[in-house]
């Protein structure tokens, strides 16, 4: 009997360990699994490496996790966003390390990640720039490429629109972004959705993330909006 439902975000993240690498979905607030991030704060794991496109805003979501001192390092393409003050302070004081990667390289766990069976691949992005320094390079057909190593994660947390209890997920508009990719890269993948439905309720032609990539689904019927929380001056916890 397959039933991947967890009763709460907290229950879904009970077993996260200190030092874990955690992929966090979202491009800005679109697709950011804010209730799962808050559950991760409650859960208490520390010394985390976070893989995410951004670093959050205000003092909620990712920014709150950073502010709580749980993050040793972020692997990120764009840590600088509107209303972002927590990460800049941690970065300047040296308390959180940053590995900056091009967005397309961050997006390559799908083909490139070890959980896709591809440990390394060549890409033209960043050749001739500081981000390629120290990386192996090679020519194919007269053009130079950088060898990039696929990212992996102990845990992936993402946000979908709807999932069935087998873990099949569909997303909402541009909130899809890193979700399907990071789902494939996590040893454990947890998805928060507005609605968990019975198997058979999602047309198999329209499933975006097949259930095999998902370990736990948790229903958050009315997820908070990062921008609304920030506008209201909210801070977590």
């Amino acid at each position, binding site marked *: 009997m397959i039933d991947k439902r967890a009763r709460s975000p907290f229950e879904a993240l009970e077993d996260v360990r200190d030092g874990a690498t955690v992929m966090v979905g979202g491009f800005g607030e679109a697709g950011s699994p804010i209730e799962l991030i808050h559950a991760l704060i409650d859960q208490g794991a520390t010394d985390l490496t976070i893989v995410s496109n951004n670093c959050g805003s205000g003092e909620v979501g990712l920014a709150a996790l950073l502010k709580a001192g749980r993050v040793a390092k972020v692997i990120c393409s764009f840590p600088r966003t509107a209303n972002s003050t927590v990460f800049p302070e941690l970065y300047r004081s040296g308390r959180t390390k940053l590995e900056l990667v091009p967005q397309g390289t961050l997006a390559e766990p799908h083909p490139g990640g070890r959980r896709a*069976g591809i440990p390394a691949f060549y890409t033209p992005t960043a050749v001739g720039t500081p981000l390629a320094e120290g990386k192996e390079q090679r020519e194919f057909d007269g053009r130079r490429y950088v060898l990039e190593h696929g990212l992996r994660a102990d845990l992936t947390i993402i946000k979908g629109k709807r999932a069935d209890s087998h873990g099949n997920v569909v997303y909402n508009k541009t909130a899809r972004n890193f979700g399907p990719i990071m789902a494939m890269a996590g040893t454990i993948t947890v998805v928060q959705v507005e609605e968990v439905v019975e198997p058979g309720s999602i047309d*198999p032609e329209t499933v975006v993330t097949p259930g095999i990539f998902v370990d736990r689904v948790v229903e958050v019927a009315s997820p908070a909006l990062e921008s609304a929380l920030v506008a209201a001056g909210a801070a977590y916890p």
Partner: protein
Amino acid sequence: MSETRSVRGRTREEMARRVAQDIADGSYVNLGIGIPELVARFVPEGRELVYHTENGLLGMGPSPEPGDGDPELINAGKRHVTANPGAAFFHQSDSFAMIRGGHLDLCVLGALQVAQNGDLANWSTGEPDAIPAVGGAMDLVAGVKAIYVITQHCTKQGEPKLVESCTYPLTGAGVVNRVYTDLAVIDITREGFRLVELSPGVDFDFVQDRTAAPLLPVPESCPTK
């Protein structure tokens, strides 16, 4: 179905049933063409498995009634199948990301030869005239977490299929975890072939005589279920 039953040991169906006993509830499973396909019929009550077929379906169901098939809903053996509730269709790249990325729990395959170090040969007899064809076999053995082989213990000519080292071209090196034959269940260990279980009416020497490499005994007792 015409079935040449050997004097002793399990039939094809009994082999499939024996494999099915060992698959945990909730497993994601890929079943190869031939005897492995039979496994799905014998999954014990109360266990739910999700079947993957590498041509692009997770949640594959049984064959449809004759005449009800959709030629665009097939398995890797190109036979008509159905889709269970909770199924998903996807393209080949996602399908092989599941395989190569270690997301599948188990693959059950046939074999031409299995060596004592876990090498598997199941795609070519290496004859110069034969048309080579590999499909997804090399991907499956390289990526799936556990590889079970289901096969007759010997060829129709009586040659052992469990060997010291494969003479046929490999599908993968050191990839097989366990072999289910008509005569026995055998694990591949660091020490080589180790008996797990004898088929009813079969004794150790009978199996060893038909195995072209040393067969280690069951660690403690030797149940014959």
